[in-house]
């Protein structure tokens, strides 16, 4: 219905362009040189105005009348129905709308009375909709006609159509640029409405600091119980998974960026860069599938023995490294050097590997493991895959930042005899640090807001734990579960939008901080 009105208007506005152009030509008897503006500008001017005005009216009247009809239907419910709980009223209204639109009805009427009211409502709604569409069509056409008449009658040989349409175009450009702001404002308002409504029933503190999350278990007459909406387990899960992701993504992404910008030849760069771009272009739902069907089962089945192996492999190195750091902090450099000269690190690594295989074949007689139980929807699996997803993000941002450090700094460092690695760690990275910190923050904000991987591979139940091998749920998982679940849309919207608002606030804060860091600490070269 609305579509056909819109198409008609579109056809009319396009026609108005040709009418106006023709009239401009006729007004000077075909000698277009006498016109102030070329005929196309006359056409353009009419076209722009008629299009703007008629489509503006179409949209505004459409939205306003829709809201009015909704309001009208709700207030015209009979008194005995208005006494019913809100959910039942909503159900009756929704069913009436479906009937009026000839769509399949969801659910059945609770009582005979409800059915009676519902059918009456449906009829009322159908009539109102009919009136609404006709009204919209008439108003939009009238608006078109009036604008066309005004602009058409203005056409004259001295009419400055070009200047005017250019001015108009400028405003249209501005309007489009403002849409970006309007989107942000729209997000804030769209999230704010249901969130505020939710916080009328539930205290903000209990939401932010409660530790028990099962929002739909305590629902009574459409209101959630404020003791079951503590979101701490969700925040814990979100940050746990995001931290694991950063643990994977930051070292790999950063090292990849360093290697590509300072070590790799053009050949390697031209094949490694597309590789990272492909990694960045893979949809998150594919990563989710990979996490849920490949990585999570692998970690569940073999994660235990791998952890055992990694402990034996990296344990001694890490231990000796820490030990030497401690020695050095106490000023015992010579002792630290001594450890180095006897190659303790190598000896310890070999010894620990030998111990590993001895345990394998001597004691356990199978691949050794701790005997841990790993959930099949462990936070570790989701985090690792999310980390892989964020690698290209970190590496491309860091790459730009590292490349922005001027060559003169590198040359200076090489000039005093530093090796490449020393130049990078002691000159370039400190210079690029603000940028890298901001890249990490942006990556973290992305990890916090990522949805599909966790929806497919992380847990559903709230679980407050420090153990990354257990299933944990996240803010985004719960939003999806609430919105796509079977519960009444109105009841589920409260906690879902409150979570959405929190998520938006967190990510926005991180992005703003990231931008501020870059602006504040950026080294000004040249």
């Amino acid at each position, binding site marked *: 219905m609305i579509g056909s009105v819109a198409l008609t208007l579109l056809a009319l506005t396009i026609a108005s362009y040709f009418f106006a152009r023709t009239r401009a030509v006729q007004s000077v008897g075909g000698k277009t040189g006498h016109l102030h503006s070329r005929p196309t500008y006359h056409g353009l001017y009419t076209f722009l105005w008629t299009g703007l005005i008629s489509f503006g009216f179409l949209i505004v009247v459409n*939205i306003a009348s829709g809201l009015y009809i909704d309001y009208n239907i709700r207030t015209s419910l009979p008194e005995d129905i208005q006494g019913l709980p809100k959910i039942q009223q909503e159900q009756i209204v929704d069913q009436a709308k479906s009937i009026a639109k000839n769509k399949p009805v969801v659910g059945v009427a609770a009582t005979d009375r409800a059915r009676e009211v519902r059918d009456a409502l449906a009829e009322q709604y159908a009539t109102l909709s009919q009136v609404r569409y006709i009204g919209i069509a008439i108003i939009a056409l009238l608006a078109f006609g009036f604008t066309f008449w005004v602009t058409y009658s203005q056409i004259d040989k001295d009419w400055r159509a*070009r200047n005017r349409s*250019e001015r108009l175009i*400028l405003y249209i*450009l*501005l309007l*489009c*640029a403002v*849409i*970006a702001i309007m*989107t*942000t404002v*729209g*997000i804030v*308002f*769209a*999230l704010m409405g*249901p969130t505020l409504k939710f916080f009328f029933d539930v205290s903000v503190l209990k939401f932010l600091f409660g530790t028990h999350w099962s929002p739909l278990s305590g629902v009574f007459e459409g209101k959630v119980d404020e003791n079951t909406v503590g979101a701490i387990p969700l925040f814990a899960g979100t940050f746990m998974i995001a931290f694991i992701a950063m643990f994977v993504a930051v070292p*790999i*992404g950063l090292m*990849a960026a360093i*290697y590509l910008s300072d*070590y790799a030849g053009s050949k390697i760069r031209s094949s*490694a860069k597309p*590789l990272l771009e492909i*990694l960045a*272009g893979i*949809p*998150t*739902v*594919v*990563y989710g*599938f*990979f996490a849920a*069907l*490949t990585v999570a089962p692998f970690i569940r089945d073999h994660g235990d023995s791998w952890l055992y192996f990694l402990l034996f492999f990296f344990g001694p190195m890490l231990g000796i490294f820490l030990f030497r750091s401690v020695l050095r902090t106490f000023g015992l450099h010579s002792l630290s050097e001594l450890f*180095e000269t006897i190659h303790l690190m190598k000896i310890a690594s070999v010894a620990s590997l030998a111990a590993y295989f001895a345990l394998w074949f001597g004691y*356990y*007689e199978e691949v050794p493991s701790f005997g841990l139980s790993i959930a099949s929807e462990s936070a570790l699996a989701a985090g690792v895959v999310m980390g*892989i997803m964020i*690698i290209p993000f970190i*590496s491309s941002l860091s790459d730009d930042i590292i490349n922005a450090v001027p060559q003169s700094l590198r040359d200076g460092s090489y000039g005093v005899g530093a090796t490449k*690695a020393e130049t990078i*760690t002691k000159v370039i990275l400190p210079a690029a640090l603000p940028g890298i910190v901001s890249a990490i923050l942006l990556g973290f904000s*992305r990890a*916090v807001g990522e*949805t*599909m991987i966790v*929806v497919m591979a992380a847990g559903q139940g709230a679980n407050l734990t420090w153990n990354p091998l257990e299933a944990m749920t996240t803010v985004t998982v719960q939003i*999806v579960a609430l*919105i796509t679940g079977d519960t009444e849309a109105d009841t589920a919207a409260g906690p*879902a*939008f409150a979570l*959405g608002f929190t*998520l*938006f606030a967190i*990510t*926005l804060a991180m*992005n703003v901080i990231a*931008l501020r860091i870059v602006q504040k600490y950026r080294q000004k070269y040249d």
Partner: protein
Amino acid sequence: MEQQDISTRHTSKKAKVRLAKRYAFERRFKMFGILAILISAAALMTLVYTIAVKVAGVFTENYIVLDVQYDEKIIDPSGERKTENFELSAFRKLVRTTLRENFSYVPGGRQAFPLYRLLSDAAILEVRKHIQANPELIGSTEKFPLLADDVTNLYLKGYYGTLEKLPSFGVAQPVGTSDTIEVFVQSNSLNVILQAKKDFMAKEIRRLNRQVRAQQRGIDEFNKRILAAETDQREQDIAKFKREVQTYTSRRDALQKEVSDLKLRIKALGGEAALNKDIASFFLKINGGMVKVNKISPDRIEGVVYRPLNSDAPAQEGQWELLVNSKPENDRKISDQQIAWIEKLKEQGKIKEIGNWRFLTANFSREAEQAGVWGAVAGSFWTMMITLLLAFPIGVTAAIYLEEFAPKNWFTNLIEVNINNLAAVPSIIFGLLGLAFVIGVMGVGRSTPLSGGIVLALMTLPTIIIAARAAIKAVPPSIREAALGIGASKNQAVFHHVLPLAMPGILTGTIIGMAQALGETAPLLMIGMNAFVVDTPTWFTDTATAMPVQIFLMADFPETAFQMKTSAAIIVLLLFLVVMNAVAIFLRQRFERKW
């Protein structure tokens, strides 16, 4: 400092050590860089490999071609030929009767259900559709390809093991032709089966022994703790630990007994052994029948007849064969009985394997063998159309304003900051915006490409604006100045000269933004595009789903066949993305100018 000191500073032993250390660090650092690239590459390879390896099962689908007799009594008892009144249940009966005709020895009722399950429900629908289109066929008989069930299909492709011939010598003498029979074999051919049984039991012993050792470790651990507790004289703990030791010991002893029992049974295997569903399945093909081996001794088989024998005459060497499916029955979805039926159909040449166009042309279905991606592709198409129609013009005009016309003041600054922030807002937030504003306030229909397109347009807008600004900025000022110099207005300079030159860059950015939008799932879930859609959407106000959302929905089904179809759907989506990105790269290389 003396000259001498400086030179020794760089030649002393200490200096050499220091230098070696620095070079070692250099090497290590470079290795870490290479390692980072290799890990990324390995991650990508693993991802692509695990998905691609599953796609092989989707290229073809299997049909069971049977002579279907379109019996008027079943299809249209009234004889009125009202095609729209043809009931599905009648056709189910027709198809089932056809199957039973081919396997007359299968008893009816419940016992025939596994037989019916060889076929997909789509087979029934397709027969009905065929008859509704050609009612004149009623009463005749025709070869009709009936779509096989996903499990049948997977077996035929070898995912549930294949039947392999074992060497079979000597004469086999069956006793009986149906139900449970015995077959005597005058050779050592059956030792293979005995050996399999022995291997299985040996494996079982190893497994139990592992458990014994685990219990033993528990005992050791708690004995240690008891010792520690005794020195500290913690009486309570000692008692607790002793109880633990007892439970571990009893469990260990029980397991050990099981092991010794098994060992005894292996020794006694010369006599008779029963095969269970955890061992490979053995079949005997003899006298036109098929026997599933249940019990075995060196010269005798006891088994269930899955296909009746023609006679109980002795079969000479070469006229009978021993077959094995090394995948145990408990590890696959298809039973030995069903395998026997399928093998019969295969021998009769009634199985036909053709290209799986259904996957590309069908809509989503809860049955793996019927599910396709066409509906989702169409839904994605309409959604992308809306996104393109909204995001491209708005994005480009916004970019033109910001780059060419905007004065430098707080307001344009605000717009810029805003755009950068919007680019980093999680996509699910855009979904909530769509739910509350596009559907709630604007009244656009739920689950429609229109609402999805609007949401995705808002989401891609920052990407397009940023790319378009970069492209416009790259056009050198001399172009503008030349246009202005010969009397063009500012608008004319921008729209007639700058914009066409910036267009390749803008298009590249737009395509990349669209590719992002095409893979986006979360916001579409929020606005209900995860609805189960049966019809292909033909307009942007129809209820629809999109490619990534359908991948998400399919991934939820546990069946192997569904996993394969999900992988195939992912490949289709990735192909679209690859094509879009290839076009973007082509545009960039072909038309973009370096000034």
